[in-house]
């Protein structure tokens, strides 16, 4: 097994535990240095333990950077203390800078772990793992369908918008445009509901209503030692960083 297949080979539940552990450790850390080491370990995972495409990560840049940056800006000016410099009427303090770095890095670590999880995990195998752990099939599939409906509804929304553009080639003024958008949203919701109803009937017709007792899986993810090694190593590393630095 190539080392870059490590994350792909880990079973989804172990990876989910790893995400949870990373978030807990990040929240428990008390210095920016510790957090920087944690960020470094995440980058290592991403670059050397997975085959995730860098361009794939760029897709998530808004989630990765936007919220931590907002949090950084919010804390930077919020904390009273020794003033370092001023931006207009806002004072940046030593305490503010530390708190801003801490909070934004903590959030960045958690989001990064989730992004790595999404980039290296097939959602279907996560759902199958949940079902194997006795989560009811209907509940697990609800999550799956919800996730599956996001890209479908995105395509639907784009297509309805295209249909709108071909109907109204030029921009319209205020109230008409508002009316169009209101109608557009109604159509989108209506189509979503109809899709969900029909999909439910189609699923039941193919035996989904039979329940989980006899259900099998074509590609059931199997528990693998790789996952355990990866999780144990990360657990030791993250709590080591927390205790030693």
């Amino acid at each position, binding site marked *: 097994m190539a080392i870059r297949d490590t994350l792909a080979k880990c079973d989804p539940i172990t990876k989910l535990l790893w995400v949870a552990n990373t978030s807990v450790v990040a929240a428990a850390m008390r210095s920016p240095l510790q957090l920087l080491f944690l960020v470094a370990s995440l980058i290592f995972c991403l670059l050397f333990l997975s085959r995730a495409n860098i361009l794939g990560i760029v897709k998530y840049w808004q989630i990765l950077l936007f919220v931590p940056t907002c949090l950084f800006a919010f804390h930077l000016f919020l904390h009273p203390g020794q003033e370092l410099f001023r931006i207009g009427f806002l004072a940046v303090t030593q305490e503010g800078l530390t708190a801003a770095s801490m909070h934004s890095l903590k959030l960045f670590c958690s989001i990064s772990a989730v992004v790595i999880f999404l980039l290296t995990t097939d959602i*279907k195998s996560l759902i199958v793992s949940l079902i194997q752990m006795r989560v009811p099939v209907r509940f697990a599939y609800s999550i799956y369908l919800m996730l599956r409906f996001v890209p479908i509804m995105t395509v639907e929304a784009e297509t309805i918008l*295209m*249909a709108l553009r*071909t109907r109204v080639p030029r921009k319209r003024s205020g109230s008409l445009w508002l009316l*169009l958008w209101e109608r557009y949203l109604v159509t989108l919701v*209506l189509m979503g509901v109809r*899709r969900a109803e029909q*999909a439910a009937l189609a699923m039941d017709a193919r035996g989904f*209503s039979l329940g989980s007792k006899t259900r099998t899986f*074509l590609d059931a993810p199997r528990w693998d030692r790789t996952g355990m090694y990866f999780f144990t190593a990360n657990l030791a590393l993250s709590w080591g960083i927390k205790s030693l630095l």
Partner: protein
Amino acid sequence: MSSLRVTNLRYAYLKRDKEALRGLSFAIDSPSMLSIIGGNLAGKTTLANIIIRKHLEQLEGILSGTIEFVFDPSRSDVIGLLFEDVHWMFCNLHVEEEVAFGLENLGVAPPDIRRRVTATLEQTGLAGFERRQLSTLSGGEMQKLAIAAVLATEPQILITDDLLSNLDVVSSRVLPELLGQYRRHSGCLWIDLSRRWATHSSAGDRVALLKAGTLLDHGPPAKIFEQLGDRLVADGDVELPELLEMLSAANQALALRNLPKLPVTFERAQLFDAMTRRYRPRPPSNSQSRAPIGNEKSSLDIDNVSFQYGRGSPVLTNCSLAVIANRINILAGRNGSGKSTLVKICAGLLKPNRGRVLWQNSPASQRLLREKVCLVFQNPEYHFLADTAFEELYLTGRLLSLPDTENTKQVEWILARLGLESRAGISPFALTSGEKRRLAIGIALVRKAEILIVDEPTLGQDKSQSRMLGLLFKQLASEDTTLILVSHDRRFIFEHGDVLHLLQGGRVTCSGAIPGFFASSSQSDFSGQSDVMAFWERMGNGNHAVEYAPRSTQELFQSLEPVPDGYSRYASQV
């Protein structure tokens, strides 16, 4: 051994006064096939839904009468349902997962699932599609996937609702054959609901005719056609194969001259033999010729365009197309050949990765194209924004700043032109699929764009409605509108199209005037063989000019005259 018995079934949807089904009774045992044929509002989709919902115990609405199922206890009691609109029946991301889903639910062992998935994908022509995302499939490929997903579960009862609606000519032949083989091999019973009397309907055990929720008659196909064939041709709400239309027209002409009728046959060779003994060509008349397509100017040119969605595989590669102005341009090709993508580029809704789009020989921006071109999508529901059909059209006029009186007048005219006057007050989403498509065309008519593109105009239309749309398009072309119609409907293309552009593997491989395109020498995988054309060729073109060819059964019989049996042995003389 499985069976289905429906006795005096009556059904009404909640909050609707009218019954959708009125006292249906029929019974079918495996391994029989029953084709239930009916036009719009006949109740086909309702019947399919009720049967499946009754089986799943999910019935809503007011039902009386009984539906009884008997299943072979040694097998899973699965009913396979193929929806009219297959886009709504999927619940997974990838092709392989979708086919495996039913088997997983039934608790089939994983190695068996793998074997059955592979076999079914091969049978349905989807081998190699295992990891393809559903969102990248064309309409026809989705239809094939739906068939694969249903067949993989090995249902004891199979119900198909308008099976052929989205398939190209080759798939329309291959996939019903596949379902037929499955029926014979597995011993399941098959109920095929359709608006057309397809080739596989004739090959089935029984045909039933459904009209306004009532079964007119049912029995062996030959008997039903003998009894009701002429009525079906006259009513026009059921689409008949060219061969049966020819048989009906031939017998009507013979009856007018008190000559004995031809026997009912579903075999082309037999009918052609009988017809060549009883008909001979009339001398050519001037009225039969049509204005030929010469070196006419193009209004829109696609110049070496390439396109791919995201980082997926290319959909169009160096594709070029000259859209002939004020003519009915037909864009045809196999499922997945890139037709829908190409028309979106023509309409300025997608930007090509490479190449140019020219409007009257000058490069056109997407904005200019959106102003000049209007596209009606394959799924008309994407166009609907209003509460009623009337408001849908009125809203478009309002957006185009039409004065109220003029707008109202125009909407009423369009509704009447499209046969939707009686449906004006109904929600667009509650219309039948054919009506929805006509309403979407109505929206485009309000826009009065210079180029009108309609993706699959005849989908969901019965024969008379298809003809009405064909005449409407001809009228628009004569009033300086250029039309691009994306269609698999060979008969519609043959009857109403002017120029055909054939798209294969992401590029237009040939363009030519219709009907020359359909001559046997240039018949392609796409077109199949037109029965009218084939018979005309058998008659040696009847000494007509080479460029003349009848485009419809009606035109064919205007060029032939009946004679007593044995008198005309025209074919052998030729």
